[in-house]
């Protein structure tokens, strides 16, 4: 319950930060760490339950609802991340900070690619892939940068429930 509360707070804070704070800063470009991806990776690492998978879907759905994109797009990306992190940590030892940071970076990139691929598949994306991917790489790097802090927050609040990470 405590973990759920902390995750809820992180998700709420992440949604607010992603949609407001970073866009108000006068840096010319507006990179924003995808905090919800970090949460999704956390779920993929530590919540190997049906609830964890549904939570990943809800995260994406919330992102869709807030960001104004068509519903289901980010939900698809988040479920893809959850599934791949789940499969990865069943076969690889992902327990130290560095490996988690790398995993977040890769997951963020993967989500971007998945979202773009689905958009392109449905004919909703007709822009250039290069600039879009490069800005997504920046966002992925930022997500990886904030990942240790968020992992520490969520791990500190975690009770022994579900299957532990290997």
């Amino acid at each position, binding site marked *: 319950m405590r973990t759920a509360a902390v995750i809820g707070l992180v998700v*709420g804070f992440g*949604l*607010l*930060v992603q*949609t*407001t*704070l*970073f*866009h*108000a*800063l*006068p840096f010319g470009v507006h990179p924003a760490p995808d905090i919800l991806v970090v949460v999704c990776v956390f779920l993929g690492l530590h919540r*190997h*339950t*049906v609830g*964890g*998978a*549904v939570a*990943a*879907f809800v995260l*994406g*759905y*919330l992102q*869709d*609802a*807030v960001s104004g994109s*068509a*519903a*289901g*797009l980010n*939900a*698809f990306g988040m*479920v*893809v991340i*959850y*599934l791949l992190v*789940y499969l990865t940590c069943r076969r690889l030892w992902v327990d130290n900070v560095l490996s988690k940071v790398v995993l977040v970076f890769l997951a963020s990139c993967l989500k971007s690619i998945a979202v773009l691929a*689905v958009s392109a598949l*449905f004919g*909703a994306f007709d822009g250039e892939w290069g600039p879009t991917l490069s800005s997504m790489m920046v966002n992925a790097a930022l997500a990886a940068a904030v990942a240790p802090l968020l992992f520490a927050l969520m791990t500190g609040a975690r009770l022994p429930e579900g299957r532990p990470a290997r």
Partner: protein
Amino acid sequence: MEFVRRNRILLTTGGLLLVSLLLYSVSIRSQPYRDPVGQVLLDTLAPFQAVFSLIGRGAGRVWSGYVDLVGARRDNQQLQERVAALESELLRLGELERENARLAELLAFRARLQGIAYGARVIARDPGPLSMTVTIDRGARDQIRRGMAVLAPQGVVGQIGDASHTAARVVLLTDHNSGIDAIVQRSRARGIVQGGMDGSCHMNYLSRDADVAVGDRVLTSGLDGIFPKGVLVGEVVEVSRRHRGLLQAAVVRPSVALDRLEEVLVVDATAQVVEPPA
């Protein structure tokens, strides 16, 4: 059933992926589709988003202010450097203008002279209190010889006391070793202009009955074989008849500002003034 239990996560995620794609497909094909969850979420988050936007804009303003401040400091420094450079340039141009005026005056003076004359620049001054000399940048290699007259557009400066290969020392008319044969322009009274130990200048050896008055102009006589005739030496500022005997003396103020001398003309004994001072 065991299969489902063992693969529940894979089956769940697979189902969720299908639901996502279905949802996406519906939402992009049905433009009027309104997501009820999204609307509730927007209403819920709106006040928080307003606060966060306010914080973000505040942080942005602080950042912009800092960047502007850094820019202003850099601009200020650049402008200060520019002002310093321009002031230096202005000083240099002013100096060039004054030098140009002096050289033009010297050239005009040179045109009034007939004979050999060499322009020279004063490069040093005698630091001692007892002798009044300056050094010029021309010497024996430029045909400068001991005893040649040194003039300025305003009048007599002195004579060459010593000449090395590249430079020469000029004994100013205020030096106590200097002696110039001179006449009073108005009365043609004749005497010798000599320097004093204190840097003053006197016209000595004037006969007691010579007509000399304050304000009289003193010119070179040309009889010493050094200075051309008719060059202004100075102006009488005081006449002294205290001395008993046959002679009288006058204090003469040199026409040339010897302490601010920068360019001079060195002339030989054959030179003559074509147009004497009015």
